[in-house]
């Protein structure tokens, strides 16, 4: 009878964990033994490891294609003032400035908007409609950026133009507005999660001491969730700076510095828009092609740093973790 065959069964249950320490041959042997027992574990591991491989490949190939531009221009690729394709001049400073300006404007709108909404949903809204509202916001988050761009260029840009009396509505302000609408769901989602993770005992303790609901939110919920909210803002920044299609349609796409630099009513040319617009006509292997990959590398590294920081901030949140257990 097969199912009474206990010895093999129990032996199989205790599958050793995957150990990857090449320095120790004993453990290496152990690792291969575990694979022999359950080859599926190796497949599972490879699938999980895939993300790391892809990130390295991405860094390598984008850096490889961009290396020509970096070796030709050096630091000028980042701080150079002129981006003129016809003269083979690739200084991305106005582009980087344009990106940061549009994102800064967007976040100035989206952070208060998103964080207050998240607090309202998690703390004030009656439980019965909370899920419904959350689902609606999730739908808002899933609307593709091309649709936002379409609406921006057809409806928002003319309105901005007539409101401020300028001839074209495709300016930094319009891009900021569209971008703000797009990043609000991200900020609501992430900071909402953090706010609902604040232990109930803390809030109840404050309420038991006679604090009103607002006092509880102000002096218990927000201080505890502060770093999580910061992380959500950083994630929102990462999303916003990488946003391409919607921004490209409403930003005006002119590679000059706005005068004065804080003039939100002048067109800008964000990094992502340049890549999307010029990639099609850039000949493979040309300096322009390489410069575009240089821009891609700048974006990749920038978002990588921001995302890693956001992760570190979330993981350094001992209070919430401790409170949950």
């Amino acid at each position: 009878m097969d199912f009474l065959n206990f010895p093999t069964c129990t032996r199989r249950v205790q599958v050793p964990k995957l150990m990857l320490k090449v320095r120790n041959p004993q453990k290496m042997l152990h690792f291969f033994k575990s694979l022999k027992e359950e080859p599926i574990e190796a497949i599972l591991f490879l699938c999980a490891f895939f993300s790391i491989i892809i990130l390295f490949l991405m860094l390598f190939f984008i850096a490889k294609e961009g290396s020509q531009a970096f070796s030709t221009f050096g630091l000028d690729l980042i701080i150079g003032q002129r981006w003129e394709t016809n003269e083979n001049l690739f200084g991305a400073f106005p582009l980087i400035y344009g990106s940061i300006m549009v994102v800064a404007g967007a976040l100035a709108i989206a952070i208060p908007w998103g964080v207050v909404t998240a607090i309202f949903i998690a703390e004030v809204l009656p439980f019965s409609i909370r899920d419904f509202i959350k689902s609606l916001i999730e739908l808002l988050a899933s609307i593709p950026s091309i649709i936002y761009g379409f609406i921006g260029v057809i409806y928002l840009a003319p309105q901005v133009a007539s409101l401020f009396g300028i001839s074209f509505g495709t300016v930094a302000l319009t891009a900021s507005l569209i971008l703000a609408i797009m990043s609000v769901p991200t900020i609501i989602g992430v900071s909402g999660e953090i706010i609902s993770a604040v232990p109930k005992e803390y809030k109840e303790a404050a309420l038991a001491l006679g604090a009103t609901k607002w006092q509880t939110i102000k002096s218990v919920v927000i201080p505890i969730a502060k770093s999580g909210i910061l992380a959500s803002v950083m994630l929102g920044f990462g999303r916003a700076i990488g946003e391409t299609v919607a921004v490209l349609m409403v930003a005006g796409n002119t590679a000059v510095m706005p005068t004065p630099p804080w003039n939100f009513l002048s067109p800008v040319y964000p990094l992502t828009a340049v890549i999307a617009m010029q990639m099609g006509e850039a000949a493979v292997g040309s300096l322009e092609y390489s410069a575009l990959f240089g821009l891609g590398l700048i974006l990749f590294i920038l978002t990588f740093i921001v995302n890693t920081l956001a992760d570190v901030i979330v993981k350094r949140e001992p209070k919430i973790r401790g409170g949950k257990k």
Partner: protein
Amino acid sequence: MTTRTKETVLFTALGVPMVTCLLVFLWIVFVLSTGIGTLRWDLLTTSVLQGGIFEMIVGTVYLLLGAAGIAGPIGVLAAIYLVEYAPHGKLTRTIDQAINNLAGVPSIVIGLFGYTFFCRQLGLGISLAAGWLTLTLMMLPIVIRGTEEAIKMVPSAFKEAALALGTTKWKAISSMTVSSAAPGIITSVVLGMARVAGETAAILFTSCVLVTRGLPKSPFEPVMALAYNLFVQIVALGELPEKVFGVALVLFFIVIFFATAAIVLRIYYRRRQPWLR
């Protein structure tokens, strides 16, 4: 004014941003619905060469299904590893971090990578297959995170019961944990599809052309997609033809369909499965 009325006023004021959010959503739906007149049945079913958008819809669906077919299995297996097998250690933390970072890579950078790696290095050219692989990279983090969540919600008693009967670990996980988490896993894949359905930047250089002769006959041919068509029409052509509204609306409906499906599935199965509250 008593404290109580003050708070009521304050909370009402706090609700304004949320209401704005919902108004924006309604505004978008309203703006798009002004173009509903352009949406006729023959527009959907006639070929692009005769002024319809049939191939674009099918192309978008091809891209979606292919990406889901690749990202789904890889993502689910990766999530199983991370929840059930991964030891606590540096490597696991690095993998976790890498998934988060992959989720944060801008889609245009993924598109650039897709072009240089899949199209040129692997020699796939501008093709459906290159688009699948590129979109896979965008879907993967969503599928992994969603699946992880679903697997974590299944009580470990299910798996332990199977182990106690003498099955292997993989058998216990695949037959008990994964099958109990299946609705959640499907939800995460559908959510991933909703996210990439309208993706433009990633397929811009990797798999799309404006007009092809009919549908792609193999994965190595370029494809037409709604998002790409919309992009080119808005960016390249000054005067927007009426048809643009139809394209935008169809794309909107496809995306909202998948997103709503994910939400409804999630709510439905949360109610059905007693261990999920």
